[in-house]
């Protein structure tokens, strides 16, 4: 208690870590992206990594705007391609901790292939995917995560494609850390972000967020508050759950938790090991061996 009082701040925890000169942000009232960014700012303050060494890369979409609001070296790239950009950043400077912060359409539809390969390679980066089950920025089109029967502007009579199960995909591609939380699980989300930031390798966090203006309105799910209340009633924390059992159906149960947390050599670890083995003394190693959370 005493310690808390002495270190207590006099401003919002996000103020020092966000570009406050660009507030208010563009997200709708009740949008779930804001809480996730809030938690991210808190995680940045807690993770113990020098802020200069953390870079953030976003794609296109509502969540893609996150890079523009966070006061880090930030890159707002093309649709679907933050992950390969982040791969270039992470490999060229192994001392950086690279975070990809983007939406479900950006990372899993157009960016799906890049996700698969970065996870497979275990490139040292953290991917935070805010899943609102829709393409929000462009007006509410169907996404690969849109549950069956849910309406979107391009599936006006209900979606008839089975949605992707993101944690299952991440685990099967080789991600070393896989978690899912909703925008309501602010403490768990923050802790997960700290774990992912300080972990070596490809870590993935799916954050289920309300999109009241589009997904919520088109499917008569109410406003942001109604959707968060739905998360409160229908989410269940099951750490270590089998990822192939945790699909999300329309108005269905949302299983949250940390599902995978394992160790594996990163892309650079493997590259350095293989090339040193074959080339011996002639090999010029790239980056030192990994320290917690980042390679330097």
């Amino acid at each position: 208690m005493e310690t808390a009082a002495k270190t207590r701040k006099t401003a919002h925890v996000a103020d020092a870590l966000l570009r406050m000169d660009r507030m208010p942000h563009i997200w709708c009232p009740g949008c779930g992206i804001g809480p996730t960014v809030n938690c991210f700012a808190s995680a940045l303050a807690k993770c113990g990594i020098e802020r200069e060494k953390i870079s953030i890369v976003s794609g296109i979409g509502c969540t893609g705007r996150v890079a523009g609001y966070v006061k880090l070296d930030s890159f707002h790239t093309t649709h679907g391609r933050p992950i390969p950009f982040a791969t270039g950043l992470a490999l060229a400077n192994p001392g950086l901790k690279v975070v990809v912060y983007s939406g479900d359409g950006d990372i899993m539809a157009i960016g799906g292939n890049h996700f698969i390969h970065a996870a497979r390679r275990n490139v040292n980066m953290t991917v935070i995917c805010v899943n609102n089950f829709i393409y929000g920025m462009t007006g509410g089109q169907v996404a690969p995560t849109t549950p069956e029967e849910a309406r979107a502007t391009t599936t006006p009579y209900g979606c008839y494609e089975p949605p992707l199960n993101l944690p299952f995909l991440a685990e099967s591609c080789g991600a070393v850390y896989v978690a899912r939380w909703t925008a309501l699980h602010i403490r768990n989300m923050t802790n997960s972000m700290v774990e992912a930031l300080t972990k070596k390798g490809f870590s993935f966090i799916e954050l289920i967020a309300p999109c009241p203006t589009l997904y919520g309105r088109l499917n008569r799910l109410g406003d942001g508050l109604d959707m968060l209340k739905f998360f409160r009633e229908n989410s269940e924390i099951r750490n270590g759950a089998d990822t192939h059992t945790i699909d999300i159906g329309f108005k269905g149960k949302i299983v949250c938790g940390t599902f995978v947390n394992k160790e594996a050599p990163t892309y650079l670890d493997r590259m350095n090991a293989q090339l040193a083995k074959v080339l011996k003394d002639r090999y010029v190693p790239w980056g030192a061996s990994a320290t917690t959370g980042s390679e330097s």
Partner: protein
Amino acid sequence: MKTTADPKGVLTGEHFLDGDWSCAEGALAAGCRFVAGYPITPSTETVERFGQRIPIVGGVFIQMEDEIASSIAIQGAVWAGLKAMTVTSGPGFSLMMEHIGLAAMTETPCVFVDVQRGGPSTGLPTLPGQADVMQARWGSHGDYEVIAVCPNSPQESFDLTVHAFNLSEQYRVPVMVMLDECVGHMYEKVVIPKPEDIEVFPRRWTKQPKDKYLPFEPEFDGWIPGMVKAGDGYFLHVTGLTHDERGYPQMNAECQEKCVRRLVDKIRKNAERIVCYEETSIEGADVAVVTYGITSRVAYAAMEMAGSHGVKVGMHRPTVIWPFPEKRIRELASQVKAFVVVEMNYGQIYYEVERLAAGKCDVHLVDHGGGTVHDPEAILECIIKAAGQR
């Protein structure tokens, strides 16, 4: 302000190399330490060579999952502080177009190599073409300018790749190296100088302190913003959206004019400093052959034959193809009876020359669909015809 090459990347000596390999050596000599690529004939040997050499020099080669990933991974590497390049051919070049636009918009210095082959579509994967020349300039959407170079030999592949890296750093712009399958796969003597004899243009790091630095405010030559890299505490924001000097998106017409106009003008207004060409026997010529890349090698043969027919013919060969040497072509248009444009496509640079000639002289085209080089006789026939008229 140039420096000399880092000796680690310079394979000094006389070599017997093909154009693809020379290009890889040129990149290493220029200080390139990151290549992301995807296999595509006839360019693959460039990345294979780089991948073999870079572990000894120190750097990274990664074969990405596709050309789209390659063309943006290199930009991540540039913002992390390295010089970077990707290599492809026609179909991959088309895939990379969005990211060439991103590099132009964010002023990311990087090099794109296109070893041209027969097109369109899958075309002739193992055979030459020169039909991507217009695409190099206009291929991405929106208004922007890039620089493109055009080697005609393995030696030039080395030299012009070094030059491409230098131009990309000087103007903070993506630069295309337009090889073709012939130059890429032909073996010739390549002399790689000592590191102290290779001029390298270093990255234009900003001299501004962190509290004054603006990522897109011109700092050098009145046109070029100072560069920084991630990890140095500048907390910069880089976006493909139309942006102001702070790098923040500003979606309005005024910002568009300010932001994009400078991107275009920094090349157009400096064109005369960037253009580069080689002329042979142009003084007093009646006919000027305008050609580039492998086609120029065939055109030399045709010119010799024309000489023995008594035709006064010279050659104008751009080595920097974009920006195009407009001023020089306009000058020549007043001096010659005709231009003969020889290119391995159905007419691309021909339209530039015709536009610049502005009716002052005739302009002829000796076209070719690709798949093999021109027949010198076809070029000769056109030269003679061109000399005969007017």
